[in-house]
């Protein structure tokens, strides 16, 4: 049961967790990506609005998961909003971790999920356009969400 992890979260993580940016559903999205799995405890859904010249004009997200899952989704949307698609595709999980001033080791998988969610949404956009897409997730190649260590800790 939790008691120590909150202390390990940076102020930046807590800020994005307490006041996440770009939360919500986008009805007229041009690309939607969903990654993760509820059994493992986190799912992210990312919505993109993309202009003619392939600029991400708006982003929204929905996340089921822990504080770091919410914070990584929030900051990832900030990092790609207003950017060309090509740039969004270069977003890495390390960049997300750095932007949050670090994540506890057991939470790094959340940043992987954020990168995957962005890529899945872009892939969906390409698919809708009938264009080929070739940008697998750098961090792990696919949608596994359970990359964290299995060391159970009990506190009471």
């Amino acid at each position, binding site marked *: *049961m*939790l*008691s120590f*992890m*909150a202390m390990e979260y940076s102020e930046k993580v*807590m800020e994005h*967790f*307490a006041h*996440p940016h770009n*939360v*919500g*559903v986008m009805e007229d999205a041009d690309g939607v990506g*969903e990654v993760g799995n*509820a*059994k*493992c*405890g*986190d*799912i*992210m*859904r990312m919505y993109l609005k993309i202009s003619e010249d392939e600029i991400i004009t708006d982003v929204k*997200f*929905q*996340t*089921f*998961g*822990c*504080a770091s*899952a*919410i914070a990584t989704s929030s900051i990832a949307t900030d990092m790609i909003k207003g950017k060309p698609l090509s740039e969004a595709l270069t977003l890495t999980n390390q960049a997300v971790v750095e932007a949050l001033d670090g994540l506890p080791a*057991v*939470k790094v998988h959340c940043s992987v999920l954020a990168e995957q969610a962005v890529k899945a949404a872009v892939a969906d956009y390409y698919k809708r356009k009938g264009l080929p897409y070739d940008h697998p997730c750098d961090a792990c190649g696919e949608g596994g969400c*359970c990359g*964290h*260590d*299995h*060391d*159970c*800790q*009990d*506190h*009471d």
Partner: protein
Amino acid sequence: MFVYADNAATTAVSKAALDAMLPALQELYGNPSSLHQKGREANYALIAAREEIARCLNAESREIYFTGGGTEADNWAITEAARLGAEAGKKHIVSDTIEHHAVLHTLARLEKQGFEVTYLPVHDNGVVRLEELEAAIRPDTCLVTIMFSNNEIGTLQPIREIGAACRKKGVLFHTDAVQAVGHVPVDVEADNIDMLSLSGHKFHAPKGVGALYCKKSIKLKNFIEGGAQERGRRGGTEAMPGILAMAAALKESCAHLEENMAKVSAMRDRLIEGLSKIPYSRCNGDPGCRAPGIVSFCFEGIEGESLLLRLDLAGICASSGSACTSGSLDPSHVLLALGLPHEIAHGSLRLSLSEYNTMEEVDYILQQVPEVVRMLRQMSPVWSHMLENTEDPYLAMAK
């Protein structure tokens, strides 16, 4: 408002406990084993503390062994019972699936050493069935270990009946009563208990002190080699401040047991009633057989750690059995043992009260939790899926 609702994790130290321990940090500094006046003075205090603990459990003082907490008492009791069993050629143990890890991990070690353990299911209400327990006891069973009150969902097991069944079959019975002592009546005689673990910090004593009750007819071997402390069974100069505080805290808890139980149960019931109004929520554990202070809920469509930290931001200290809060892959083994799917177990919340809590605090919790759950559901894709696919008119209305 600040509300501490995590009393199953640990409790605040009481005034009585603090007053009892301060002398041991000041003038009562003698070593109880010393023959001079300072030693004797400390020894008298130690004898009185042991008597007090024994009195509260209806045991004899020579049946009380002070330990460094509940975990140590569990390790000691189970390891010893297993050793005694093996000496008699009996290497089978009966336990259940929702024990604390202090018990489960000790049993796992014994399994590696050739013992066989039967883990009884607890069904969807978190309670062991007596018939199943009786049926699980075999001629080679040396120990039954079943917890008194569960730390996550608060279910109480039928300890007295389990103890009677063990007596009838001549099998040792140990109970991890860490969440029970000081909270519900515990009487080792009437409850047919042979060995019992308790821990001070669950009833307003400091952390790091506990006790093992072991019936005098059981021939315990030394657990820690050293001096003659704890009748030679656990060497090492006694942790006097903690021991004196624990005795004072338990004395106080037992003196006010009835009124505290009434007060805390009333707050618990109000919490359960209020939280049950949240759609797609469930109260975990048996509705009737539960400890006065422990409330466990699952809220579908959200994850426990974010719920917890949101509540923390609102000034409420609680806990969760979600995987994220333990740094492990799986949600709590207790919630899974109830048959809850992972998805739902991830959304768990435990609120645990003590007599220090108030109805105003309960009302504040009841104002905050539904708000936080609603907020997290709004940003949850799992909840959106549920809304999209629902045939439930109530849910559909929430779209």
